[in-house]
């Protein structure tokens, strides 16, 4: 075999080997990425408007959301997941703020960070009235803190 053809075969072999490794790695990553997430749906109904009282927000533990109902302004839904490291925040009626138990982040009633390590405000989710009159929350739709649904 000539030296020239040896080196070009060698290069071709190397390229083939590298691409094989690359493709396999890609396949491994893709394999490990779930194609279906068996997780609670991102969009769900939470009940009739009449189920929610005025005043302090209702905490839905399963969905990790707070449902606010205001006589003038209507409905709003805030996420209870702290933007710092994912602990579940609590709403305290006496100071009208969210407090995170993990590292002490404090969020104002509109979700803005007042204190602590949280880098971003709490998010608000879109809430709409479904056709059957129930309230429907969509966690894939983040809305500004001023968003309200009047029923």
């Amino acid at each position, binding site marked *: 075999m000539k030296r020239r053809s040896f080196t070009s075969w060698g290069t071709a072999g190397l390229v083939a080997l590298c691409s094989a490794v690359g493709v396999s790695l890609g396949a491994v*990553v893709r394999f*490990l*990425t*779930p194609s279906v*997430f*068996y*997780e609670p749906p991102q969009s769900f109904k939470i009940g009739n408007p009449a189920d929610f009282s005025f005043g302090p927000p209702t905490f839905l*533990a*399963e969905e*990790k959301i707070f449902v606010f109902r205001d006589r003038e302004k209507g409905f709003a839904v805030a996420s209870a997941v702290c933007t*710092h*490291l*994912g*602990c*579940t925040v*609590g709403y305290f009626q006496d100071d009208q703020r969210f*407090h*995170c*138990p*993990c*590292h*002490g982040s404090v969020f104002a009633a509109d979700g803005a960070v007042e204190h*602590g*390590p949280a*880098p971003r405000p709490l998010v608000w989710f879109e809430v709409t009235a479904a056709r059957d009159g129930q309230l429907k929350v969509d966690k894939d739709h983040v809305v500004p803190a001023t968003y309200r649904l009047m029923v």
Partner: protein
Amino acid sequence: MTSLRDVWRSIVRRDPLSTDKGKSELVFLNLWLHIHPAKVKRENFKLKHTFYLGFITFYLFLILVTTGVALMFYYRPDAPQSYQDMKDLQFVVYLGSFLRNMHRWSAHGMVICVFLHMCRVFYTGSYKPPRQFNWVIGVFLFLLTLGLSFTGYLLPWDQLAFWAITVGSNIGGYAPVVGARLKELLLGGHAVGESALLRFYVLHVAVLPSIVILLTMVHFWRVRKDGGLSRPVWKLKPAAAGPLVRIGASAPAEVALRVMPASQDKTYGLMEVVTGKPIFETVTAEEEEDTVFSYPYAFFREAIALMATVTSVMAVSLFWQAPLEELANPAKTPNPAKAPWYFLGLQELVSHSALLGGVVVPALAVIGLLAIPYLDTNPSRRPADRKWAIRAFTLFVVVNVVLIIIGTLFRGPGWALVPPWVHVTGAE
């Protein structure tokens, strides 16, 4: 018919141990023991040279494998069934809670010992040539130990497990670009749930232990190939010029060969002197006097260390119960929620800045550790010659320990600074 004696001789093929040949053959002919040289330097037995920390780490790993396999007979990686299985292990399975305690306490012990082992290797300068790469392998073993501990933490599926892993995996999520993706791959979802439990289980019982076993083999092999343990620092003399090696000294046209300073730490193998390279004079006559057979001297000490390790873990496991809190409840965060203790230093940083504590500092720490043997080019291993290296590393150790202590003992509800002797009531 073959006599019983011949059968025995077919299994154990070495000479009797009363002879020097038998003592050597015990080492050469045995798969498990051949990682030792036949003879070792007596000075390396000194407790204050290694504190046997590498061995203790390895023994803890053996205990973990044994007790871990035992636990696997009763554990299903399926939420919330896992929690019931843990309860069964705790209260129903014969010796279940004892095995669980042993597994838990040796896991903590291994994290501590691997760190201390790393410190001893640093302070004795044992990462210097030719051992640079064994240090690098060591750093990977250290990270794998943390990974094993972290993945194991989730398996009981109680509140402690759930929230420690939630907080821990969200710290990783802060990594730029790849963070969110990595977190999704690790958890198999967007939050800690059933797929995360299964993934952590597979990593914990199959993937990570296999890698640790492989790397440990390489690690031990290289200790041996690097000429055994480094010499105790108190035996090192101030640097002298490398010995001049001459070949054919009797011939009139005497040729001086290129001088290669011989490493005083290494015993060279035959294959290293056969080609035209200079012959190193490494083991002086007086040093040769100072070596002893691995059997029984080294094995005896290693056996003592093994028994001491097993006994201590058993004793601790008799008296201290591994924690098991209530069933994991994603809706209710315990206050405060803490990552596993060895990550509390990071969590402490994260409580000030997530990006800094979660990404920048740990990445720099790992890269720094890996690079130590290549950054520190000072050839001397004597503490007197490496004051600044020792100061820098000590600072690293002290900062780590202090942050972990603050995070573990001084952080109360809402991550407020609370001394451990003050009890906060009414925290939910």
